């Protein structure tokens, strides 16, 4: 079996542009909006909870997961090599007013889930019409 070249195309991290030599990817995301807020699921395999950074500033949610478990790969004779482990970074602009203090994140099985609650004034309200 001959060693294959890296074949999996991964999206590089979008913003900000990074001036280090580390490998940065944009994590694949599922984003769901419901009445009360947004839930995001971001794939960050190999990242530890302590290495996740979530910030919210001026309507932009920025998420970073740094991969610190970089193994020494110099002595490996690869039979199949399809990816290179790396860190993850992605940011999302949320124009709906949100409750920034209520943002919560949880990293489980390599997937980071983030709950972003909407601000009270952004929730759709049902107006009760009273009959005369």
């Amino acid at each position, binding site marked *: 079996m001959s060693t294959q070249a890296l074949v999996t195309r991964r999206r590089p991290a979008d913003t900000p542009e990074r001036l280090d030599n580390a490998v940065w990817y944009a994590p694949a995301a599922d984003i769901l909006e419901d009445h009360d807020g*947004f839930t995001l699921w971001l*794939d960050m395999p190999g990242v530890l909870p302590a290495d996740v950074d979530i910030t919210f500033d001026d309507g932009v949610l920025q998420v970073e997961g740094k991969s610190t478990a970089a193994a020494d790969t110099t002595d490996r004779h690869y039979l199949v090599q399809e990816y290179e482990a790396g860190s993850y970074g992605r940011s999302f602009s949320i124009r709906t007013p949100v409750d920034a203090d209520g943002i919560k994140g949880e990293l489980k099985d390599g997937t980071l889930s983030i709950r972003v609650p909407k601000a009270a004034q952004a929730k759709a309200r049902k107006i009760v019409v009273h009959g005369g």
Partner: protein
Amino acid sequence: MLELLEPVRTPFSGLHDQINQLFEDFYRDAAPQWGEESNRFPAVNIWDDGEAAHLEAELPGVKLEQVEVLVSGNELRLTVRREGPANGQHTWHRRERLVGSFTRAFTLPWELNPDQVEARLKNGVLTVNLLKAQSAKPRKIKLLTQ
């Protein structure tokens, strides 16, 4: 005998060609990317350190009971099931994470010992240690003197 006719050129032929080119470029750029991504899930690395082979695969959001590793002879088969978030009366803004059942199969250059396969799943990364079968290990041959 067939005669090839020169296509009739009209003032719009150039535009027609350009539009065709646009579609060709679009499909050439878009199609392999998606196909490649889904064929290669999960992406794996397999390497040899002399004593054993090691497989590593990134499986975020997958639980141990959703992973199956089968070893037979020199073949290794990895099957993974991944479920997405529950679907309700909500609005999806992104759905990029692949869900479903995925299988990858590999043929290694030597026989594997099926009794000594260790698999671990941690932080969304699967590692499998595959020991070589006794018959696949190099043996020192005793030289006989005459």
